[in-house]
């Protein structure tokens, strides 16, 4: 490239040099245009309208702070961000533990930050729970019953319960349960067990706690049989090819937003205290769980 440039200079002198500079300027301008918008994906929660409202304030803050438009898009279901990260031209996504882990491993996504919740909680656990009056206390009692998972792409709502079942001698969810299904959200899985629409459920601890704080009957009626190790609940991961300068500006904007009034307001709407730096090593526990659950995942086959 450099040799070519010198050759052109030798042959065409100043005209060529001017043309090169012009092209170079246009190139810079094109690059700037490409970075005028950031498209960030969000995995759906129980009430996507509330969720969109929470994230909207964050996107507005970042747009103003970075001087570029930050757009949000709700992915149709958990895990879609990973399958369609490239196809949807996402620059980043707020991902739950299993999808973040998959994204880091398979798409080389770069974990940037985690939000710290209003209760100063950064992590979530997976819970496996039953109704207290169900008589189910161990994995052995679960055979022949119905179980509700959240989504095949959730750590708390699928990977963890599969890993627990695998460790406790239940290897085939297709045959060892009378019925199994995916509720689509953590709250729905909790309500399904409360109502008696499923005997056993799995969901994440933060949603369980939030619902139980709103309704005391939930703690009275549900019994937690097992809980997973804690892992970061939400992680903003960006594509590896994102302009490093923009990536760093984005990270800085989020890490420092609790230090100014506008940022604090946006954080309050987002229901977080602050953001903290994320590291790929935090997902080792999820990878270990994946290894434990792998035989059951293979057995489940079509559900993956």
């Amino acid at each position, binding site marked *: 490239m450099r040799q070519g440039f010198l050759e052109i200079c030798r042959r065409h002198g100043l005209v060529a040099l001017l043309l090169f500079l012009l092209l170079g300027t246009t190139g810079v301008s094109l690059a700037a245009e490409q970075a005028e918008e950031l498209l960030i994906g969000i995995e759906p929660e*129980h*009430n996507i*309208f509330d969720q969109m409202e929470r994230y909207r304030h964050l996107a507005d803050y970042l747009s103003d702070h970075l001087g570029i438009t930050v757009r949000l898009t709700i992915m149709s279901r958990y895990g879609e961000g990973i399958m369609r990260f490239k196809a949807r031209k996402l620059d980043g996504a707020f991902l739950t533990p299993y999808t973040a882990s998959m994204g880091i491993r398979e798409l080389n996504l770069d974990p940037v930050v985690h939000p710290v919740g209003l209760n100063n909680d950064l992590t979530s656990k997976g819970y496996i729970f039953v*109704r207290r*009056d*169900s008589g189910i206390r161990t994995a052995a009692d679960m055979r022949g019953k*119905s179980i509700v998972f959240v989504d095949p792409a959730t750590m708390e709502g699928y990977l963890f319960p599969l890993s627990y079942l695998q460790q406790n001698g239940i290897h085939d969810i297709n045959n060892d349960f009378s019925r199994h299904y995916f509720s*689509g*959200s953590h*709250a*729905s899985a909790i*309500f*399904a067990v*409360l*109502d*008696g*629409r499923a*005997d056993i459920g799995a969901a994440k601890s933060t949603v369980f706690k939030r619902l139980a704080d709103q*309704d*005391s*009957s939930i703690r*009275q*009626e549900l019994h937690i049989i097992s809980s997973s190790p804690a892992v970061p609940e939400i992680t903003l991961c960006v594509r590896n090819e994102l302009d490093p300068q923009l990536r760093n500006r984005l990270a800085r904007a989020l890490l420092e937003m609790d230090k100014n009034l506008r940022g604090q307001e946006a954080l309050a709407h987002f229901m977080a205290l602050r953001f903290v730096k994320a590291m790929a090593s935090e997902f080792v526990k999820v990878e270990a769980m994946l290894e434990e659950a792998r035989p059951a995942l293979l057995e489940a086959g079509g559900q993956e």
Partner: protein
Amino acid sequence: MHFFARLLLPILLAVCMALTAAADLCAEVRIGVIMTGDIPYYQAMHKSFVEELTQQLGSRQKVEIIVQKPFPNPISWSNAARKLIAFDVNLMVTYGWPATAAALHEKSTIPLIYAGVHEPDHAAMAGKNVTGCGYKVPLSSIVRYLKNLKSFQTLGVLYSSIEEDSVRQYEAIRGLAGQQGILTRKIDIRSRNDLAQLKEHSPDAVFITGSSLTHLWIEEILALLGQKKIPAADILPHPPESEVLMTLSHPPQPQGRMAAEMAGQILAGVSPGSIAAHTFRETELVFHQGAARSLGINFPIHLLIEATRVVR
């Protein structure tokens, strides 16, 4: 003579044995059935019971089923049980706790199978001649969903003080509502005249217990509630044309089928006490959008997705 006697004796024996065997093949049994009330829930349960039993027994056994559908009150339930004992039935089947309690009260030696009993663990019905199946609907879920649909301070509870299970449901929902700061108002239905209470009281929402008396006049009750735009939730299922805003219930058919399986075992000689009783815990959550429209209520999308079925 001696020759004829020697020839006839085996023939006579063979004929006797054949007749005995034939009688056994078509032995007739009588099953007595008591419904706590002649309501669709128990009718559907009984239909499934008969279908399953017919399938199980085939032509092996002739079965006569005597069905008693007394008007729901303690004397009628008791009379129904006594009638079946007088008929000398081989087996009694009861639907609902009040009919079961009446049959148990007679202390008969006739095997008893119950079905359609809410929270059978809470009802005292131990005995070597008794088994059966019931269901449990978590009442806390009813309060939770009603709260999500409408902000309310008072909850009317339609129950019947002569139906013990219905009283238990009232007590349970009163405790649950109290935890949420909601006041409950008893609406005791013992006769049709008691429906007038619905004209006097206007609670913000109404919970309908599994009382048979209440369900005998359910359409009138729903019409009265509809006039006052009071939403209702029930623990018994309803047909789509019946505009109950929300039901959280266990379908009657599995209980009917299980009662028939138990009956088949008992008729085959198994002791009722050795057949494990069962409580069905699976429920169906049904939202009625037509009822919601009439009441001016919009189902939030996050609630609709919880429903097993939405009646549109």
